[in-house]
């Protein structure tokens, strides 16, 4: 039986204004998972997180946390979520200790446990030295950690962070990532980011969102395996005429296509080719066959490299197609407008 997810987002749509908002967003976060909500700025990441935390009501769809529905039992859900919004909005006129006790009370941490819990969390986040300082006097890095402290003070099953590393210096970014990783041992974590490498580094699962819609989701390996139809690709640099080499490789078993990337004449007699495997051919098989075939012809091989499909490619592909579609739509609208004008005139 599948384990019940900590967070279940089911077909959430949030409309506000004609174009903003998110449409039909669905994904899950399971216990022990770190899930990254990845997308360019303005993709709908913050809106999605705000719906999940109950700040914005969804126009349609459901959000469930530990089996409790956000709509039916809002308090049961809120008790189970810790939230670190973008640029954490703290109370500047309180000391760190006062602020954390306030948030602990708000989040129903039992009185008897409050002080011990704050000390514990302060130690873990290295805030012990600043507990007596005013929040408003803290640096950005410290404030981000106070924000994180208030989000976990009540030990919620789900921790939600909106762009937790934005605005931090590189050193603090590394620290924040380490903290998120360490908190994932006790909490299911959902965080948003527009930094691909960060999501790749931290997450078991990635939800790519763009234009208010989920474009793809899965583990990094799952996501990239679908790229280029899941076919293996090998780049070859061989000292031979490009046409001849391409011809020879096309005849091989399991090769579906060969493209000439660079003519031999242009690169000192070394041609560069891209070989695509057919369905079911692994990258290793493909490499073996290519090397044997080329060696058999007596052509020296300079390079044989398996091209890994990267998330970056996927990310660009997803956001580019969107751009292309938009451009297309804009052109169509323009054409229609022009047509309308002609009709009117």
């Amino acid at each position, binding site marked *: 039986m599948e384990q019940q997810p900590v967070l279940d987002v089911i077909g959430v749509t949030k409309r*506000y204004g004609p174009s903003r908002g998110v449409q039909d967003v669905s994904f899950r976060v399971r216990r022990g998972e770190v899930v990254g909500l990845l997308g360019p700025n303005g993709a709908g990441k913050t809106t999605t997180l*705000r719906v999940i*935390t*109950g*700040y*914005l*009501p969804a126009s349609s769809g459901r959000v469930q946390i530990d089996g409790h529905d956000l709509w039916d039992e809002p*308090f049961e859900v*809120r*008790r189970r*979520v810790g*939230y670190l*919004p973008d*640029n954490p*909005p*703290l*109370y*500047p*006129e*309180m000391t760190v200790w*006062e602020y954390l006790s*306030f*948030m602990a*009370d*708000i*989040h*129903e941490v*039992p*009185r008897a446990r409050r002080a011990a819990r704050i000390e514990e969390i302060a130690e873990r986040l290295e805030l012990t030295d600043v507990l007596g300082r005013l929040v408003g006097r803290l640096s950005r890095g410290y404030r981000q950690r106070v924000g994180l402290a*208030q989000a976990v003070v009540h030990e919620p099953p789900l921790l939600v962070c909106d762009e937790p590393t934005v605005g931090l210096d590189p050193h603090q970014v590394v620290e924040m990532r380490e903290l998120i990783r360490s908190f994932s041992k006790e909490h299911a974590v959902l965080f948003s980011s527009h930094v691909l490498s960060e999501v790749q580094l931290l997450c078991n699962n990635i939800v790519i969102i763009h234009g208010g819609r989920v474009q793809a989701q899965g583990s990094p390996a799952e996501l990239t395996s679908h790229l280029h139809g899941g076919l293996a690709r090998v780049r070859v640099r061989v000292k031979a005429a490009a046409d001849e080499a391409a011809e020879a490789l096309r005849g091989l078993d399991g090769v579906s296509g060969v493209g000439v990337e660079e003519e031999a004449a242009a690169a000192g007699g070394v041609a560069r080719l891209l070989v695509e495997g057919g369905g079911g051919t692994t990258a290793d098989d493909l490499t073996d066959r290519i090397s044997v075939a080329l060696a058999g012809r007596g052509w020296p091989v300079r390079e044989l490299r398996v091209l890994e499909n990267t998330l970056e490619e996927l990310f660009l592909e997803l956001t580019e197609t969107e751009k292309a579609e938009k451009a297309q739509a804009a052109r169509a609208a323009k054409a229609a407008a022009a047509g309308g004008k002609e009709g009117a005139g």
Partner: protein
Amino acid sequence: MGNFGKWWVVARREWQVAFQAPLAWVLLALWMFMGGRFFVGSLLGSRSTDLTPVFWNLAVLLIFIAPLLTMRLLAEERRNGSDELILTAPVSTGQWVLGKYIGVLFVWTMFAVVSLLFPLATSRFGAVQWGVVASSWLGMWLFGAATLSMGLFASSLTSNQVVAAMLSFAVVLLFYGSTWVPGHGLVGQLMTYISLPSQFNNFTLGLVSVSHLIYLVSLCVGFLFLAVRVVDLRRWT
């Protein structure tokens, strides 16, 4: 911790924050200074022990003080986004707004308590009608409670504190000066009835009637309810 705890937690924070900033102290000093002027003017000049003019004038000061005490309550939270953390915590909007109100009511009560120095000082030199003092003081306190609820409501409408202060000034003035509106028959009676001075007047005569208490309390409840609705509705649009 039950529901009792939530608004109490919010109220206590408001109270602490109010007295950490200079504004409340400055207003308190102004309150005492002006109170002293009224006291000297109306009692020492006429050699009377009637304190009702002092409470009357102090109540008028509330038209200016209430907007200043309440302007930041909700507007500031919205400006810096901290409402997002409260409204995603297990706190209802009602508990939150009520907590804010109780907090500022504490601050106001301190102002009101300090003003009892005037009757106390008078009692050393003459006979004070404590019954009238008590009802006038209660009237002033309720007058303040009503103006603060209007201020809190105004603060829910905007994220700009200055705008909030001006709005609440306008609302308070509307309820203060509704008798100035010329009106006959039912309208005139209604305008007179809802005006805060005509309500307050009965208290300064030593009359504490249930209908006046109910009117002022429902004024507070009504504006708190409106503030809650505004905070909730904003998230839906």
